[in-house]
């Protein structure tokens, strides 16, 4: 796994594993409660498809590593004695922060090729044309009600997350780093961490009905 950095974007990354994410989180004063990556073992050969998302591994990769990390967070909390719950597992407001150095280049290239050929674009490409769509999938699936952000660098992501937690926009954040291999699909990788901050709300304050007004 390689890491590319530049002075202008400290922590900017093409491919970054959980170790890099964890180090960046700690540097920003955040604690990591769960993590995941793709691939993790030799059995991680085919990224599981994600219904409604086509022609690119960008969104399926995000969904896979995020799902793994969120499952491990839930597992860890059950081991600590917290009951399993469906909605917002424990009342925590969790932000979703996606980090990508290039975005969904596979989808973008396919759309461009179809446009240049004067062909129609499949409607599903409209829905996956921004990284927010898979973030929305994750939010709905896991009841994550915090802000949704997509930025290009790890350090800006961690700095933004630290402020979101400090300012009570979120109790925790799911941070997913993803980038497709730029040539021919080799090197498609993703990693995820779930972080908390020292200023998050106490557990006792998290429970209760969603206050919409």
């Amino acid at each position, binding site marked *: 796994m390689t890491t590319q950095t530049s002075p202008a974007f400290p922590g900017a990354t093409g491919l970054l594993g959980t170790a890099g994410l964890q180090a960046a989180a700690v540097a920003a004063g955040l604690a990591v409660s769960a993590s995941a990556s793709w691939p993790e073992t030799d059995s991680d050969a085919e990224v599981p498809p994600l219904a409604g998302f086509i022609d690119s591994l960008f969104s399926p990769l995000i969904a896979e590593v995020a799902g793994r990390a969120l499952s491990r967070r839930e597992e860890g909390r059950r081991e600590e004695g917290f009951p399993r719950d469906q909605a917002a597992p424990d009342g925590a407001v969790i932000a979703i922060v996606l980090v990508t150095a*290039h*975005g969904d280049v596979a989808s973008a290239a396919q759309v461009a090729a179809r446009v240049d050929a004067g062909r129609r674009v499949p409607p599903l490409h409209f829905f996956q044309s921004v990284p927010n769509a898979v973030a929305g999938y994750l939010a709905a699936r896991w*009841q994550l009600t915090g802000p949704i952000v997509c930025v290009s660098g790890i350090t800006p992501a961690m700095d933004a997350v630290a402020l979101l937690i*400090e300012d009570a926009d979120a109790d925790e954040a799911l941070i997913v780093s993803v980038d497709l291999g730029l040539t021919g699909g080799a090197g498609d990788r993703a990693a995820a961490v779930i972080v908390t901050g020292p200023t998050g709300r106490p557990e006792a304050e998290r429970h209760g009905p969603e206050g*919409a*007004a």
Partner: protein
Amino acid sequence: MTGGTPTARRGPGSVVVTGAGAASAYGRGAEALLSGVLSGEPAFAPVERFGTANRRVHVAAAMPGSPDLLTEVAQAAREACDDAALPAAGRARSPLFLAIHGDPALARAADADEPGLGPDAFTAAVAGRSGLAGQGLRCYMSACVSASTAIADAAASIARGQADRVVVAGGYLVEPDQFALFDAGRVLAADGQVRPFSAGRRGLLLGDGVGAVVVESQESARARQAPVLARLAGWGRTGDAFHPVQPHPEGRGLARAVTAALQRAGLAGADLGYINAHGSGSPHSDPAEASALWLALGEAAGTVPVSSTKSLHGQALEASGVLELIVTMLAARKGMLPVNAGFLGVDEECRLALVLGDALATTPQYAMSLNAAFGGANTALVVGLP
């Protein structure tokens, strides 16, 4: 607020906007944007920039010719810095937060060129051409809340004393790929008009939008005797946790964003004198937003003047947040609220105090700009006159 939603906090510092720059179908410059919007004449016209023969819809709000995104964003950033009376040395110490869809060259780049392209390289190029700092750059690609999220992050950082000044810019210029995608998604208004909150609305239309603002601590602005366009009084961002691309039908997430922004500003809903709504003109999005306003503002939702200036300049995607904040600030300063164009008749699901007919002459002390995006992402920004 107790329970599942935390009470919004913020740092103690006051945050102001000291400069603005823009480009839109109304022309280059923030003043051209304001005068165009206040004319009440929508800027939509047949697309001439590229062929639309295979598309269902053939209309957008675009500047003449084929402007270059990098050139236009850099120009808007320079205009904002000029407006803020920011000298070269100050620009060189100001980081750039840029909101874009991505590097426009990447989709058609040869494999060998790809590593040198991308949002970071594009952001660095904008900063370089604008004389801004080469460090601390950020690129936001969070769809239609990109720029508003960047502004909120800049404000939060400045309020906490982590930065004195950030230049936030965003840019979208109507191009064939997004046009094809939106056309394929059948969300473009086939009747050639955007009609937010109106009966008979048919959808959105894309528009050129480039904007930049200088966000600064009040202390920094005061120390250099800079002009203040507006105070950035409050901000909020939330997620719906409802659907990949549809908003929560009751606007619960957007309501929480509005509430957080008002909490940070120390305001009640009735203190708002104008709301520049997200108002995409889409059948499902507008009722959700109206519901959000009733949830968050209570009875004030029936009296605060509301318009969506997307009905005039179009949907500028990632740049919407900064373009519409500029419109909101400048309109409030001018004491003229833009009309909600394209209105055909009342939709009972969108009962709001819409600005109809002509621009409304009134000077709001506080105004709010709303944005929502795919993923159920929501933002609210509250500005106050200095």
